[in-house]
């Protein structure tokens, strides 16, 4: 089976051959690894790769996984599956220019009102998470058309908090 994985912005093509139910080989980067794997729990794998032991912690789905090895975290994506998926759903993607908090947080202060004209980089909303405050600012010049939250609201990461009509 062929895979195209992505790790830290590098594409890694892999040819994978399953030999027994727990054993497979993986040809990648001019090298072939012989791997035997045991699942310890949903999040733990015990791997023997070319005779060397690795305790690996893993979380994710078929498309992407976070993998911890010796205290380091690797985010790995299956490019084939992700491309299939995004071909169907590319329009729903949030524009990076929205007013969105970087993490789950609580709205502490709203500094503008509907109808206000705001300038790029002007402070709009202050959110706090775990006692740390972050100011979200305007991505472009425009008029505030709608504010979706009130002070004190809990908001999710990447939730759009405010609509701005660009000039």
């Amino acid at each position, binding site marked *: 089976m062929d895979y195209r994985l992505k790790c830290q912005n590098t594409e*890694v093509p892999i040819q994978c051959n399953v030999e027994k139910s727990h054993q497979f080989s993986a040809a990648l980067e001019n090298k072939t690894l012989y*791997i035997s*794997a045991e699942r310890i729990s949903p*999040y733990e*794998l015990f791997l023997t790769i070319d005779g060397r032991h690795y305790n690996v*912690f893993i979380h994710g789905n*078929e498309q992407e996984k976070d993998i911890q090895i010796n205290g380091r975290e690797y985010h790995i994506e299956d490019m084939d599956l992700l491309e299939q998926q995004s071909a169907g759903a590319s329009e729903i993607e949030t524009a990076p220019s929205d007013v969105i908090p970087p993490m789950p947080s609580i709205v502490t202060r709203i500094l503008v009102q509907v109808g206000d004209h705001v300038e790029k980089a002007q402070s709009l909303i202050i959110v706090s998470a775990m*006692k740390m405050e972050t100011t979200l600012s305007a991505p472009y010049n425009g008029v505030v058309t709608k504010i979706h939250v009130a002070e004190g609201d809990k908001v999710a990461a990447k939730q759009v908090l405010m609509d701005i009509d660009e000039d």
Partner: protein
Amino acid sequence: MFQKILIANRGEIAVRIMKTCREMQIPTVAVYSDVDAAALHVMNADAAVHLGSAEPSESYLNINRIIAAAKQTGATAIHPGYGFLAENAQFAQACHDNDITFIGPSAEVIKKLGDKIIARNIMAKSGVPVTPGTTINSNNPDEWAQAAETIGYPILIKAASGGGGKGMRVVHSPENLEESCETAASEARTAFGDSTIYMEKYLDKSRHVEIQILCDSHGNAIHLLERECSIQRRHQKIIEETPSTALTDALRKKMGQAAITAAQASGYVNAGTVEFLLDDTGKFYFLEVNTRLQVEHPITEMVTNIDLVRHQIEIAAGHPLLLSQNDIVGRGHAIECRIYAEDPENNFFPSPGKIQFLKEPTGPGIRNDCGVYTNFDVPVEYDPILSKLIVFAETRNLAIQRMIHALQRYAVIGPKTAIGFMLDVLSSKPFQRGETHTDFIDVHFKNWKPNLSEKQIACAAFLADNLLAEKKDNTRNETPSERISVWKQLGNFRL
């Protein structure tokens, strides 16, 4: 001794305090908010009282409810931990007024030392050196600008009732002053209920060295050596160690004496910490007194072999200190790494959320003071500390090796942590040479990216996880309570 102790805190520190209480055979009472009903500190206590909703003001900062919880459960003493009400004079006073012993210094001492401005004045009068600069106590932007000019940039804005880096900002030039002051004041109001801020000269080549003190109510005061806490991000410590590589025996003695002078000048009773900035010429300046148990207290416990929480409880019960200064001898070297739910690739922003999986390291000389468990949802409302990983070894080099090993064996899946980042710090030459200054992370690890040398292994793990997918627990999408329910796993049965 106390009949029962209520711990007015949450997370790892509440759990740690309960451990000593158990050893002393003192029953414990936990308090908790809506989001903490299944928190580890609740399960580790003998009993627990629900305080209210998640907002700190409705729960862990709510003095009336905590006092009521103590009365309701018959707790005769309250341990405040660190943060929340630990340095709140009104809370200490409320305990006193209700015949509950507050395990910490008196309300009067907390008030004096908690106001960083008054504290500086007390120290200056007693001959303890203070940081260069002017203090102001105002909410007026014009006065801020004037004070900053007098001190000279760069300046450091701090919260008068602050601690833990909350409400702290470095300002390098006048144009950022007003906004920084306002954000600092706002953060201070949220975290401490007091928006008063003040300014100091910002020293950039300095170390943060603090002295642990123990003072009883009979006039005995000793110090328990130093902790160096220079490795900080967002003005909050992340790696601490003892002993400090910068202290000679003579300097250690001098700083220890200054700390005892500081404690006695303020009438201090119980455990406390006197923080100093130490410059490269061996000059040190008083920063503040933390009138509580410090986050990093375990490293002192490791090298002195003294349980600080036990001493806090005994001192609060009126027992005299049986230790003298000569009994305090440091052995070996201890390092602590704070494991926060935070993203080191994104300016250490908090990364709350559910812990999918947690595996704590164990082994010789490894201690992990942990407040969470697999399936616990780390709330967004509180400080994101998950645990503190502490190692102890014969020498500094061996302690570094031991910490690297322990971090490599620590798995946290769900929230991001700085484990990989701290591995790189501990492995770096400047850290190993002991060149630890408060600007360490900015100088050496400014735009840190993880060092991912086992990419091929990770790719192999990805494939193995897919290959063994059918063996995975297929209850992943259920809520934790559904997953851990024994009844679901038993199937149908009749009685």
